[in-house]
């Protein structure tokens, strides 16, 4: 059994690594993750230390230069990886969980409950989410927890739509029907049979949502609504904005890290999509 499983997973791994976007995405992701975990070790300086030389261009001592307070930009960017990943994963996670619950319940129950929940989804889709997030942060403060919760609460609709569609198509399949006949409870069926089988499109969408959350946090920080207690790439871009014509490196490199990270998750999402739906690869 375990030997067979090992062979199978080895085969799957080989196939996954054959998909270029997935391979590149995973390599980049591992690098970004390592940077986040090992930040204090690999960062050349303390990201908050004022080192004296203000707005120094990139040099051997400071590969990416220093900012307007004389802090080492490379160290700040490496430490910024942490907040970006935390926000991205948590916000996408919240949005995924809400999406699964709403979508699965709506699709499985059908009837009036389904119509009501679909209605709620359509209404959420029509509200300008970013401005809602902005108002909430302006009123309640931009702590990292608030950002995560609000972004998660405003981006779940696509997940719910996907989960609902999957549930509707799984609902009448033989293995679900036989579980019903065997007397399993509704919630148990949903949790054990429907959700695990219908979750793949959500995995793809959630990966893309990680990028979305990272970009949203960057935008909030750029407007000045970020968490002042963390080091965030969006905030570094904002700090660099005032010195854009003289100290271009501040905004350039911090922005590039946002692009690279967001791109990584888009690549993984695209790759996973191809991995999980092999038909797609042949047809389109």
């Amino acid at each position, binding site marked *: 059994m375990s030997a067979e499983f090992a062979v199978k997973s080895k085969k799957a791994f080989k196939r996954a690594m054959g998909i270029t976007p997935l391979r590149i995405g995973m390599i980049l992701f591992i690098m970004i993750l390592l940077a986040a975990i090992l930040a204090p070790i690999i960062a050349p300086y303390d990201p908050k230390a004022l080192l004296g030389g203000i707005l120094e261009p990139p040099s051997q001592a400071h590969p990416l230069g220093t900012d307007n307070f004389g802090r080492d930009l490379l160290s700040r960017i490496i430490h910024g990886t942490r907040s970006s990943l935390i926000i991205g994963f948590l916000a996408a996670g919240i949005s995924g969980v809400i999406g699964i619950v709403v979508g699965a319940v709506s699709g499985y129950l059908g009837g009036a409950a389904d119509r009501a929940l679909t*209605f709620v989804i359509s209404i959420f889709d029509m509200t300008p989410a970013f401005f809602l997030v902005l108002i909430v942060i302006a009123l309640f403060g931009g702590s990292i927890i608030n950002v995560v919760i609000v972004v998660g609460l405003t981006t779940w609709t696509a997940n719910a739509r996907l989960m609902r569609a999957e549930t509707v198509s799984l609902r009448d399949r033989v293995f679900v029907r036989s579980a019903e006949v065997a007397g399993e409870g509704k919630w148990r069926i949903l949790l054990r049979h429907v959700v695990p089988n219908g979750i793949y499109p959500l995995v793809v969408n959630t990966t893309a949502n990680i990028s979305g959350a990272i970009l949203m946090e960057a935008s909030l920080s750029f407007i000045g609504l970020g968490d002042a207690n963390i080091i965030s790439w969006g905030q570094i*871009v904002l700090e660099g904005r005032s010195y854009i014509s003289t100290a271009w490196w501040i905004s350039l490199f911090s922005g590039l890290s946002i692009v690279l990270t967001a791109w990584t998750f888009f690549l993984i999402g695209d790759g996973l999509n191809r991995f999980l739906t092999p038909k797609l690869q042949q047809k389109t």
Partner: protein
Amino acid sequence: MARYLLKRFFLCMIAVMFSVFINFALVRLAPGDPISIMAGIEKPNPLMIEALTKKYGLDKPIIVQFGMYLQNVFRGDYGFSYRSNLPVTTLISERVGPTLLLSLTSLGLSILLGCWLGLRAARKKDTLFDRFFSNLAYVLDAMPNFWLGLMMMLLFASTLKLLPTAGMIDVRAGYTGFQNILDILKHMILPVSCTTFLMMPGYYRIMRASALQAMNEDYVTLFRAAGMPRKQVFRSYVLKNAVLPVVTMIGMSLAYSIMGVALIEIVFAWPGMGRLLLDSINKRDYAVLSGIYLILSISITAATVLLDAVYAWMDPRIRLS
């Protein structure tokens, strides 16, 4: 068709009510008392407190308060900015022109360019052209729009000095007439190209995917086998079917596009609503923030109804039902 549109209209009305409710609830849930939030000042004077209490019925039960709030919104009263001593609607209407100029130009350009490139990519699937633009679409998606704006400003305005850095007009030159229009156009190039680059990937991708799907239909194969020229099949049968999802996409991406426009306005100091938004955040002028949110919600839902009508008219399956 009338029934379909009526249903959509009903949905949109509920969506507006939902936005109004959220707005109403947030002020009451937020730390601090509603009066000082709405006044935008730490210690409002007694007269102001009295006026606000009366206007929003703050001494009455919460249901009555919501009713009064709703009444104000439907009367077109989105609040009063005590910071600027002007009604919120006046503040917004002063800024709405530049925003519309910027956003509609970019929207039109991104639809045209995105669809054109998407169609070409679908016809030349798996060629260098297709691969290049499909990958570029991902990179553009991953780009924070404000950062792209800053970088283009750095390159074209600060370094190459080809284009103006910020604003909508050159105040010092004081152009009039045709020269003024030229001046505005020159100031528009950078912000418009930024927003266009950011909206384009969505249209590119949906056009490419739906054209590919339409090209895979059996009737297309049949027409080709019967000897109809490729171009005619494409124009008369593929294009018509492929363009419908694009209309849906416009509606779905409106809310998202407006966020991009707001950020680009902030970067280029474009005198539109994005700028107003930033000022209101910095001044903690909540009345304006909530006014912008409400007006945007209403405009987006109105645009959605309009697009639904266009869609229903374009799609015979709905038009004839």
